[in-house]
Every structure is written in C-alpha cells, then in structure tokens.
C-alpha cells in the first residue's frame, strides 16, 4: 500500500461520497458544495496523474466559474430545501434502479477490458508546456473554433438573459 494507492482510495471515496451528496441532499446549495468537493477530488486525481494543468484548470473553470454561476443562480432564485421539488418514491426508486442497471451493464462490459497498471512515476505529458505545444500545433483549429463557440455562447447567454418588456409588477429584479 503505497502513498499513491492511499491517495487514490481516499480521493475516490471523496469523489463518490460527495457525488452521492450532490444527488441526495435536499438543499440545492448543499448540492453545489458537494459538487465542488467532487471536483476537488477529481482535480486531486489529476494531480495524482501529474496532469497539473488540467487539475488547476478544472478548479478554475468548474469550481471557480461554473459552480459560482450555479450558486449565483440558485441564490437569485432563492431556492432552498423548503421549496425543493421532490419526486415520488416510486419514481426515485425507478431512477435508482435504472441507473444501477446501467452501471451493472457497463460494468459487465468493462470487467473484460484489459487492465493496465498505472505507473506512479511522474510523466511530463500533463505539464503545461507540453500540452501547449500540442494544443497550438495539432489542435490549433479546434482551439480557434472553441473560442468562436465561447463567443457565441456568451452572446447567446446575453440575448437569452435580456429582459423582455414585462409589466412593471412582474419584474423580479434582484441585483
């Protein structure tokens, strides 16, 4: 049991536990917190595999930006456990069962997969200089396209979020 394995099991437990927390907590804010924790665990895995760049980008993008947006929206709507809609027992059970079946089915598939041992020795493919070289040579076109995607998403979000001319009484303006 080396440190790598210990960290692996610890982070895995953390990831799975907080993932379960995401779907089980009644309070949306708690869900967000748990999800951030999951992301931290996943980032920990990345660091474990010496994918430092992705680890920190994961934190910045997911924890630092995306989840802040989620939290922001939840706060804007003032959602909490009291107003959280709940599904019926049967539907929840059906969800769990079907998810579980999917899990089992794919599990059946991957048990036959060849197992490759992960070498704990650090590699440098996950370092930023290495990734940068690949990104700006082989994947420069997808990179540019993704920037266009970003721009369009930004414009789209602005357009969607623009206030329509609603009656003054209907306005729910918070900021």
């Amino acid at each position: 049991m080396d440190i790598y394995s210990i960290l692996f099991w610890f982070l895995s437990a953390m990831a799975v536990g907080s993932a379960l927390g995401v779907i089980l907590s009644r309070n949306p804010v708690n869900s967000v917190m748990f999800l951030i924790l999951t992301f931290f665990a996943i980032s920990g895995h990345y660091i474990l595999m010496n994918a430092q760049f992705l680890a920190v980008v994961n934190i910045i993008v997911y924890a630092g930006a995306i989840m802040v947006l989620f939290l922001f929206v939840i706060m804007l709507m003032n959602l909490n456990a009291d107003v959280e809609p709940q599904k019926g027992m049967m539907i929840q059970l059906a969800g769990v069962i079907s998810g579980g079946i999917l899990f089992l089915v794919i599990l059946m598939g991957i048990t036959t997969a060849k197992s490759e041992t992960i070498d704990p020795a650090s590699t440098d493919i996950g370092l930023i200089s290495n990734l940068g070289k690949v990104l700006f040579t082989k994947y420069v076109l997808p990179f540019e396209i993704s920037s266009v995607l970003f721009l369009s998403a930004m414009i789209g979000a602005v357009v969607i979020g623009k206030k329509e001319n609603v009656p003054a009484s209907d306005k729910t303006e918070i900021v």
Partner: protein
Amino acid sequence: MLLLNIDAAFVIEKVILISVILMGSLGVAMYATWAERKVAAVMQDRLGPNRAGPFGLLQPLADGLKLFFKEEIIPDRSTQFIFILGPCLAMLTATMTSAVMPWGPDFTLAGRTISLQVADINIGILFVFGVVSLGVYGVMLGGWASNNKFSLLSSIRAASQAISYELAMGISLIALLMMTGSLSLRDIVGQQHGFWHDGYFTWNFFKQPVGFIIFLTCSFAELNRAPFDLPECESELNMGYHQEYSSMKLGFYLFAEYINMFVSSAIISTLFFGGYNFPFMDQVQAAVPSGVFSLICVGALMTKIVAMILFFMFVRWTLPRFRYDQLMKLGWRSLIPLALVNMLVTGGVILFTLKK
C-alpha cells in the same frame, strides 16, 4: 527514515515552513488592522489607537480577545452548516495562496538545501489564480446562509464582481506570462534577479506597466476593498455579507480580508517587483552566508509587501466608492479591452523584436 516513501525530514521541514508562513500571515493581518486604523487616523488628522500598549500596538490583541469572547449568534432561520462554513472558507482560501509563494532563495542548513517555498509547482500562478477564484465562495455562502436580504444582495454583488474582474486579471496576467514564459513563481522571481541586467530593468513592473495597473485595479476588486468595496458598503447594505455574523466568525471574515491583502501584496511584489530580489543582491550574497542572505531576501520581500499594504490603505482612505454599475462598466468596458490590447501589443512586441 521513510514514511510511505517520503523523507520525514522533508515533511518536518515543510510543516515548519507552513506553520511559520501561517503565523506570519496571521500576524501581519493582525497588525494590518492596527496599521489601517493608524493610517486612517493619520490621514484624517486623528491619533488612532493609542491606549493598548505603546502606540496602541496591543490593540489587535485586544480586538481579537474581544471577538473571541463575544456571544456567538447564529440566526434562527439560517442554514447553519453553511453559515459556519462561510468564514471558514474565506479563511481557508486566504491562507492557501501562500503555499506557492517563494518567500526567499534556497539556503543550506546542515547539508540540506532548504527551500523557502512550500511547493514549487510549475503552474504556480495558475494555482494562485484558482485559489483566488475560490475566494468568492466564503462571501457568497456566508451571505446566502445568513438568510438576510442585505447579506444576499451583498454576496451576489461580491460574486459578480469577483467573476468580472477575474477576467481582466487573468488577461493582464497572460501578457506577463508571455514575457516570462513560465508559470512557476520561482522561475518568475528568478528572472527578475537583481534590479538591473543587460541594460534594462529586470523587474516586470518596468516591462508590463499597463499590466501592472490592470492587475492592481483588479486586486482591489477581488479584495473587496475601497474603492470597490460594494459588497460591504455600509450606506447601502448596512454591513454587507457579514451583517449577521458575530464573534470570531466575524473575526474570520475581517481577518481573511487582511490576509488576502497581505497575500495580494505578496503576489504583486513577486510578479511585478522582483519578489525577494533587491538591487546589488549579488554583492550582498557574496558577502554574507546563505542563511543570512536568505533572511535579508525575505526582509526585502516583506518591505515590498508592507509598502503595498500601505498603498492599499492609502487608496482606501483617499478615493470615494464606485457605484455598482460604474464598477461593472469599468471592469467590462475598460479593463478587459485594455488588457486585451495590452496582451496583443505584448505579443506583437515579443514576436517582432525580442524573438528575432
């Protein structure tokens, strides 16, 4: 002795370093509160704290004690766990940043090279950035959990402000990183060795003045400090996000702010003012033993940090507060385009002059 393949001495060394940095941060933060009051007093032609100890130097201790012994009030209809989590997160993120800071050059002690940096990761500046981006959670969660309108408004303000200014900050940083070619703070500091080299200043401040100004401005916003302290502007939101907090949880928030200020100053010093470098350091290094030299370097860094902190305070007590829409306009319509232009110009300069 090996524990799980890790050198125990290494662990001990890091633990000591972390403790020292943590204590140092807290100490600086404590005395930053004192300094702030003193600065404010000076600027407003008052005396400031002067009762506890000489020049009121014990005032922070007295404040701390008071905060510890105050009654803890947790609002009845708040989300308790998150209510407590808020200040903890604020404190956590504030102190985490210092992990990648190079506080001084390596020195040799008993045959071991000891680094004055907790972790030299090659994405150091990204780490800082990541932690800074998490900093907003403390404010947001605390404000939301308080179940108070003012707190909620304040936390939403804080969140959007932080996200908005992070962009400009990141872009201004990219220009800097294009100059340095490395994300490791150690490398960045190493490149600014001394003060004058090869006919030009080594410090990044002289290479990236515009970037510095943008970064500085964004730092104000990230720190929620005047003139960008909209999340806690008393005239509009009473106390802001920590309205419902009392006792040491309030203390944590206040403390976290000062720790953040300390860390920000450290980062600005490291990125733009050469970190622990100082003019004529080579001559000094030759003259003194490495341990002493390291201490001198740390001293130089601390001097810069204190200067930055004082600058933050001067600004706070000099400039009036922005309106919120002005703040947003400044961020989105001035700083981001400016940072982009700066980035483009820097890239052009690098491409056409320096790399030839």
